[in-house]
């Protein structure tokens, strides 16, 4: 009995360690953003629809907003576009878009064809702002609270289910009593 005690103990320990590892291993496809719980990056970028205007993070202080990174070259962005339009219809939180590495003409044509769900669209033509947000593939969607903290990040196309479960549930209850 005794001579099996140590190997058995080691085996049991291994089982426990590996079980913890498997249970905690994240989905390999999505990388957990270190931005979660931290202040969203400050930005001041040209406005896609009006080059004389600047889309600034300081203008968004005190408000919740959704920050959606997209590009016309991005297939999944097309897939989530309807969800974004629906979110705009709900009128619960503004969506700030960031057009990532896109020729302006393409972006304008895309919005004309599919509709514009954004309150404002910032332009990141050379990809520097995307690095600040830790973006590694479009679409990526962040939820930023009224204190400027990133509370959630979704990688990949936004679906109505994801919107309801992960975004709506995190938003504060509506202030507008007429609607509820």
């Amino acid at each position, binding site marked *: 009995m005794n001579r099996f005690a*140590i190997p058995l103990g080691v085996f049991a320990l291994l089982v426990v360690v590996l079980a913890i590892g498997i249970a905690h291993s994240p989905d390999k496809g999505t990388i*957990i953003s*270190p931005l979660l719980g931290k202040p969203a990056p400050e930005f001041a970028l040209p406005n896609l629809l009006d080059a004389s205007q600047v889309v600034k993070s300081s203008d968004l202080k005190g408000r919740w907003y959704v920050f959606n990174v997209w590009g016309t070259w991005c297939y999944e962005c097309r897939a989530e576009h309807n969800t974004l339009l629906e979110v705009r219809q709900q009128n619960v939180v503004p969506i700030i878009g960031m057009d990532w590495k896109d020729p302006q003409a393409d972006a304008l044509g895309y919005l004309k064809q599919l509709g514009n769900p954004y309150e404002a669209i910032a332009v990141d033509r*050379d990809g*520097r702002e995307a*690095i600040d*947000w830790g973006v*590694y593939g479009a679409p990526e969607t962040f939820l930023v609270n009224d204190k400027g903290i990133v509370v959630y990040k979704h990688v990949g196309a936004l679906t109505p289910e994801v919107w309801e479960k992960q975004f709506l549930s995190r938003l504060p209850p509506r202030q507008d009593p007429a609607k509820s």
Partner: protein
Amino acid sequence: MRRILTALLAGLVLYATVALAVDPTQMPTPALQERYLGLTHELRCMQCQNEAIADSPVDLAADLRRQVRDMLLAGKSDDDIRNYMVARYGEFILFRPRASWKNAWLWAAPGVLILVGALVAVRIIQQRSALVPQDNEPLEEDIRS
């Protein structure tokens, strides 16, 4: 034969230029160039996760290489650049994980295993050597085999 060799050589040269073409960046000094190459080889391309940004042809890798270059030219240290990347993309962007309290147990594990193994070995050797003077009977295992 000669023609085949020439073709092979041409192919190799072509391959080498294609491989080099991913990143033609030249830093102004050899020291900076060396640090640039070091950093771009130890940062992961987040889009094609098993490639370093130095080897990846995707856009994001090029943007990250530009970021590394700009920061080096601005006089930032290698650790500044690593910290910058980790703050945005997480530890995962480093191919070589750094020691931290979170993964300390992992770094300690080999040492602990060696220690446990040594203790077990010492105990077995002590038990066996204690047997020898008083006991001339063969060991149980020896009879069975």
